[in-house]
């Protein structure tokens, strides 16, 4: 069935990566000095890659649109990062991490990539600790772990609720070190707008200096995109406001296939929407599910306060439906279960689109333990709650403060209200085992590629992938390509391909400025988001998807006729930046719906209402859909499907069950 080659090395699964590393061609140090690599993105994926490649001796240019690489969206990750260290001696292993990830992704990820990810996971923790990343520790001085959804071992490393921040600052400091030594040229406040291709290979980019508006041409022997995910296609999501698909989309238009665009992860524990002024949604880390119990009232439309609803009138629906995993089922399962209860009329809060996340039982339990530790037998409830609150505060203090800040409610006293929200995109540019896209010399890492999470990502696995790609995978695999490029001299940027790419980028900017329509960019973005959430969100069906495609095409036409972008293109113009991004989101939105419509099955973050079991669980079709859908861009916003067959040789494909 496959008509594309994923270049997976031959041999036993457990030996593929080791063998690859020891047989891949090397580039000699004096040649490395003349080879230039462009890295777009300075999140975990980009910063780690830029630092490592520079350290290896390549000449690196790194780009980001923020004012500093330290502000990349990775900074916001809260919960943690997985690694198969088995420090807790609870039976973890590379194989188990591999297995959990493949199963968690609903058997829609590539075995070889996932196994490699599990193999290098342990090195990531070593590397970060060596860099001075202050991960949480136990009193004995060793690293602490917690568990995350979809697993039964404790393999998640963390730094309070700020894991992403600490890991990114680690990668950022490694990057700054190389910048300080003159080995990386950093271009902040620069946005990549085009990929430049010469003789079929990626040879550079066009970037806009966001302060002056100037378009710049940059040559590279190879180009790496580590530009993050596209969840903001939904307008409301947990992503940072600037997260966008532009770099990946422009690459897509230059021939890079876009894989599995319809796989969107909806995170179960976000602060619910409070009004339509809202610009983004705030995540409450999944780690809260370790100590929070999720429930709704047993009675429909129950308007009593949480505290007035007695135990026996509460429905702990996750514990009821999934006794083995309970509140720790994977995200897709937890999200759908919340939607199901709310749709059935059991939601809480003024919007009724929320469920409770309640810490009371565990606060009391911790309190009891603390009391016993300090020699108090039979402590009363009040004492237990007081002591337990201190434990909870130590574990999740900053998240609780954030919740109180946003909602004006005190989560230590009343349960949090949560609802699912768009969080992460498993789809992205198609890459082979080397992380190279279908355009030679163009690589893609981190959330921007499709490769390691299948149809659903387990918590704490994105940070792991971003750093694995940047620190440990790409630095080897890109060598395989660059070793054949050593005789290529830097191509001058007055080459016609650069001129043409720049003209194209300029054309888009000029058009946007000159439409001078009547509606703001946000107006279009909100409308797109509404279509996507309603018809391509937590649940989809053929009818809705067909409507969405028609609606999006109409929206696109209207956008190009009626958008209003004030100001000019030769200055800092944030509306112009947004306009370009929304234009790309609109095209991507259509492809997401086309992909969702094509996939006549339910799997992971893709739930087609027509395909479900009698109990309402996702119903996969492994005979017809065990493939990666890789879409090729065709003239005039059309798409052609290519399929990469997924072979499971080491894992028995089974119905996913968390019961």
């Amino acid at each position, binding site marked *: 069935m496959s008509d594309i080659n994923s270049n997976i090395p031959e041999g036993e699964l457990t030996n593929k990566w080791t063998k690859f590393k020891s047989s891949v061609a090397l580039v000699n140090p004096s040649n490395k000095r003349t080879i230039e690599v462009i890295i777009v993105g300075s999140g975990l994926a980009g910063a780690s890659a830029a630092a490592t490649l520079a*350290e290896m001796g390549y000449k690196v240019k790194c780009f980001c649109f*923020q*004012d*500093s*690489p330290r*502000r990349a*969206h990775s*900074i*916001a990750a809260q919960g943690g990062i997985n690694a198969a260290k088995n*420090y807790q001696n609870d039976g973890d292993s590379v194989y188990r991490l591999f297995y959990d990830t493949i199963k968690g992704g609903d058997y829609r990820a590539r075995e070889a990539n996932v196994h490699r990810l599990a193999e290098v996971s342990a*090195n990531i*923790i*070593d*590397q*970060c*600790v*060596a*860099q*001075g990343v*202050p*991960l*949480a*520790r136990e*009193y004995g*001085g*060793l*690293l602490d772990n917690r568990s995350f959804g979809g697993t039964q071992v404790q393999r998640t490393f963390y730094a*309070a609720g*700020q894991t992403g*921040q600490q890991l990114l*600052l680690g990668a950022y*400091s490694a990057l*700054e*070190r190389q*910048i*300080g030594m003159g080995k990386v040229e*950093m271009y*902040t406040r620069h946005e990549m707008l085009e990929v430049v291709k010469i003789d079929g290979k990626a040879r550079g980019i066009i970037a806009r200096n966001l*302060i002056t508006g100037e378009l710049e041409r940059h040559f590279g022997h190879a180009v790496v995109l580590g530009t993050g995910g596209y969840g903001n296609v939904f307008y409301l999501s947990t992503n*940072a*406001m600037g997260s966008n698909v532009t770099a990946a989309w422009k690459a897509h238009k230059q021939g890079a296939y876009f894989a599995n665009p319809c796989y969107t992860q909806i995170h179960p524990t976000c602060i619910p929407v*409070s*009004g339509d*002024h*809202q*610009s983004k949604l*705030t*995540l409450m880390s999944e780690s809260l599910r370790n100590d929070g119990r999720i429930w709704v009232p047993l009675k429909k439309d129950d308007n009593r306060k949480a505290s007035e609803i007695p135990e026996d009138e509460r429905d702990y629906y996750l514990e009821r439906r999934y006794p083995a995993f309970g509140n720790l089922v994977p995200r897709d399962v937890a999200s759908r279960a919340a939607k199901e209860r709310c749709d059935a009329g059991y939601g809480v809060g003024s*919007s009724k689109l929320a469920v409770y996340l309640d810490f009371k039982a565990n606060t009391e339990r911790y309190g009891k333990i603390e009391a016993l530790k300090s020699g108090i037998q039979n402590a009363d409830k009040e004492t237990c709650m007081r002591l337990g609150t201190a434990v909870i505060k130590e574990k999740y203090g900053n998240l609780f*403060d*954030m919740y109180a*800040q*946003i909602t*004006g409610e005190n989560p230590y006293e009343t349960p949090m209200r949560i609802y699912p929200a768009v969080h992460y995109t498993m789809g992205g540019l198609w890459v082979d085992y080397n992380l190279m896209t279908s355009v030679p010399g163009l690589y893609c890492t981190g959330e921007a590629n499709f490769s390691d999470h299948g149809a659903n990502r387990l918590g704490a696995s994105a940070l792991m992938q971003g750093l694995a790609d940047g*620190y*440990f995978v790409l630095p080897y695999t890109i060598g395989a390509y660059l070793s054949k490029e050593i005789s290529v001299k830097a191509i001058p940027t007055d080459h016609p391909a650069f001129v043409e790419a720049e003209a194209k980028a300029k054309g888009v900017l000029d058009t946007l400025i000159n439409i001078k329509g009547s509606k703001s960019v946000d107006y279009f973005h909100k409308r797109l988001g509404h279509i996507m959430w309603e018809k391509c969100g937590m649940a989809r069906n053929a009818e809705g998807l067909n409507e969405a495609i028609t609606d999006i095409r109409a929206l696109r036409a209207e956008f190009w006729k009626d958008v*209003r972008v*004030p100001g000019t293109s030769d*200055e800092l113009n*944030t509306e112009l930046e947004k306009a370009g991004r929304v234009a790309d989101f609109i095209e991507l939105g259509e492809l997401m719906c086309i992909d969702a419509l094509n996939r006549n099955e339910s799997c992971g973050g893709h739930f087609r209402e027509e395909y479900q079991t009698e109990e309402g669980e996702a119903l996969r079709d492994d005979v017809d859909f065990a493939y990666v859908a890789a879409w090729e861009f065709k003239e005039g916003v059309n798409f052609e499907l290519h399929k990469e067959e997924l072979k499971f040789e080491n894992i028995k494909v089974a119905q996913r069950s968390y019961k």
Partner: protein
Amino acid sequence: MSTGNMNLTLKVWRQKNNKTKGALVDYKLAEISPDMSFLEMFDVLNEQLINKNEEPVVFDHDCREGICGSCSMFINGRPHGPKDLVTTCQLHMRSFKDGDTIVVEPWRAAAFPVVKDLTVDRSAFDRVIASGGFISVNTGNAQDANSLPIPKMQADAAFEAAACIGCGACVATCKNASAMLFVSAKISQLALLPQGQPERYRRVQSMVAQMDAEGFGNCTNTGACEAECPKGITLENIARMNRDFASAKFLSEESI
């Protein structure tokens, strides 16, 4: 359910670019909801300006979760506004009253030149980090993480210093525009960890030199930085940095 009933007057600093002069401009806003964040209130203002075919106010922001350190503005004379320990994006309109007049200005410091409206250039911070705010370790062969036990209290203290988001409020609020709190936070984080020891004294010297070269002022122990830091970074870090800086002077090149 979205619109509220707060009416506000905003006085916002507008400045086209670094070469032109800026001024405060008045804007009236109605129907602001107390549930909006301060930046969402700005979104409403900008939507209004765009509808009138005017240029929206430019300000830095990204995560809107209080962690990226992008959002930066003086609100009624205080960085990040009237509440302690929150960034502008986490400040909600319920912290203000109906009918309030709110003055909004950019960070002020010679080392942070204005780019446009409320956006300033904070790249000096990156250059300070590039001068030594790291541990020199190459990728690939780090020892097993648990072969380096670190007492919990020490790891927690390092983490607390590491929580700095690089927002620059400490600089903006300081009458000397000193970057001591920011720099000392990084220095403390690494000085508190065993991994940070080999370069400890070299690090403090080069970072302080770069800080001076960037045009940040000196610390005169006023403490405004600590009072305004949204992440609760403490003056203790400055003391630690000063101690290390002084020690470094007495060490010979070999011991550094």
